[in-house]
């Protein structure tokens, strides 16, 4: 799967190099968590690479988003707007839901294979366009499936529940999206803190930790503590490969396991010891 750069400093290493092309990402967070900033960085990075950008704004008006981007120091988006490489779509949740139901198939047929970056900010009004949970799932699932054919999609989602990620409106998009990023903002403490965590990312390794981040004028979101500079180590898979040679296993099983270890790094084992894994493999195959 081809990786595209997220445009967020420090995020690509946490996603094994970047966002998967033609995937859907959901960024969840409460008000003020930095969702729109992240979305703007994502779309601006694509524009810098010559990809078209579509910013579907279902809540704030486009002037507000543009003003904030300019205040952030990203006035180049005005040029992208003039050149129509970046297009804002102001719509209500109901209008956009109707677009998904009635117009999306024809639109996708016309633009299949495009490499645009599409932001939907926030997705919440689309969910609220229907009360029926089955319909919500159907609508969002269909939209994700179709839109990823014409580009790489990033949706923001408001978090409303009392506990982290417990709100009912976050469950369906989280389940259906390829990648989920959670932004937490603790503003009550005397020491306000922001944390970014990748909840899931299909077809990609990703960091399991919560990483502190800052929003810096001119740069946007900067994620700290990514291990992007740290060299990749392969101690665990190498040791496991050697251990497998010392034990008696059916030839096809050994070959298959050997192949499975190709490309794995220590990070994939998350602290599991080679001896521990070997023991479990033996339990599974010996005497079978």
């Amino acid at each position, binding site marked *: 799967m081809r990786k595209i750069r997220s445009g967020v400093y420090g995020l690509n290493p946490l996603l094994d190099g970047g966002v998967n092309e033609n995937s859907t990402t959901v960024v969840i967070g409460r008000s003020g968590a930095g969702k729109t900033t992240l979305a703007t960085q994502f779309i601006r990075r694509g524009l810098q690479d010559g990809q078209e950008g579509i910013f579907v704004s279902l809540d704030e008006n486009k002037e507000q988003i543009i003003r904030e981007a300019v205040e952030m120091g990203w006035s180049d988006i005005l040029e992208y707007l003039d050149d129509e*490489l970046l*297009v804002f779509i*102001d719509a209500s949740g109901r*209008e956009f839901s109707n677009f998904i139901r009635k117009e999306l198939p*024809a639109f996708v047929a016309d*633009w299949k294979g495009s490499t645009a970056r599409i932001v939907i900010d926030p997705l919440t009004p689309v969910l609220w366009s229907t009360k029926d949970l089955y319909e919500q799932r159907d609508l969002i699932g269909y939209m994700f499936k179709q839109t990823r054919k014409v580009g790489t999609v990033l949706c923001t989602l408001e978090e409303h529940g009392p506990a982290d990620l417990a709100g009912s409106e976050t469950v369906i998009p989280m389940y259906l999206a390829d990648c989920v990023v959670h932004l937490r903002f603790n503003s009550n403490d005397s020491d306000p803190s922001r944390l970014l965590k990748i909840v899931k990312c299909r077809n990609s390794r990703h960091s399991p930790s919560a990483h502190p981040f800052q929003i810096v004028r001119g740069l946007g979101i900067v994620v700290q503590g990514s291990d992007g500079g740290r060299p990749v180590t392969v101690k665990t898979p190498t040791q496991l490969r050697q251990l497998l040679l010392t034990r008696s296993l059916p030839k096809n099983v050994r070959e298959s396991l050997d192949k499975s270890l190709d490309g794995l790094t220590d990070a994939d084992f998350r602290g599991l010891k080679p001896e521990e894994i070997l023991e479990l493999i033996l339990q599974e195959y010996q005497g079978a």
Partner: protein
Amino acid sequence: MARGIGRAMQKAVAREGLDVDLDASGRSLANARRRQVFRYLCLRPCARIGDVGRDLLMSQATVRWHAWDLVENRYLQAEGTRVFPLGLIEPADAALFAAIASKGRAAVLAAAFESPGISLLEIAKRVALTRQSVSKIATELSEFGLVRLADDGRYRRLYPTDLLVRKREANRSRAAAFSEALLRRMAEEGLSPELMRKDETTLSIRFGDGHRRVLLEIPLDPYATAWMRSA
């Protein structure tokens, strides 16, 4: 890969609202069918009510009712039985537009532009009219200065003049002023118009009443669109 996906999506999202009435009774362009009539007359000013009704699948009475409302609300101007968008064309050209609004005349004019020097006999075959009808239309068009008739001894041939080209060029500043005035007029009506796109040939305005917004695409090039037919 072709460019323009964003604009295409914008149109597709707005398309849903093209045919809906806004919850803004009393405001002229809040009515979906009235918007269709207005748009049609921007495309073909001074078109006959019967032709408008036939093309838009409305009764003549309905078209007349909407046209009257648009005149009352200063979106259209009436000159005798002819109606055209206020400020979009030179009022003195109303007769010219009325002439080329007819399908037969538009077809003959189009044939002259497509194949300068085409014989009247060839036009008759191409547009499925009798030789006599084509001859009559060619004379009418030449009286407006739109075409020139020439006899080469064997055939009567038709050549386009540059009148429409010149008028089209000269109309650009008028169309720009029309766009500004239209946005102002809609704002006066409380329709909160938002300019989506404006170039020399098209004006896209998104407007509504807060709950529902629709997209209206106005053709701004009547000296070309009045006689060019896609079908």
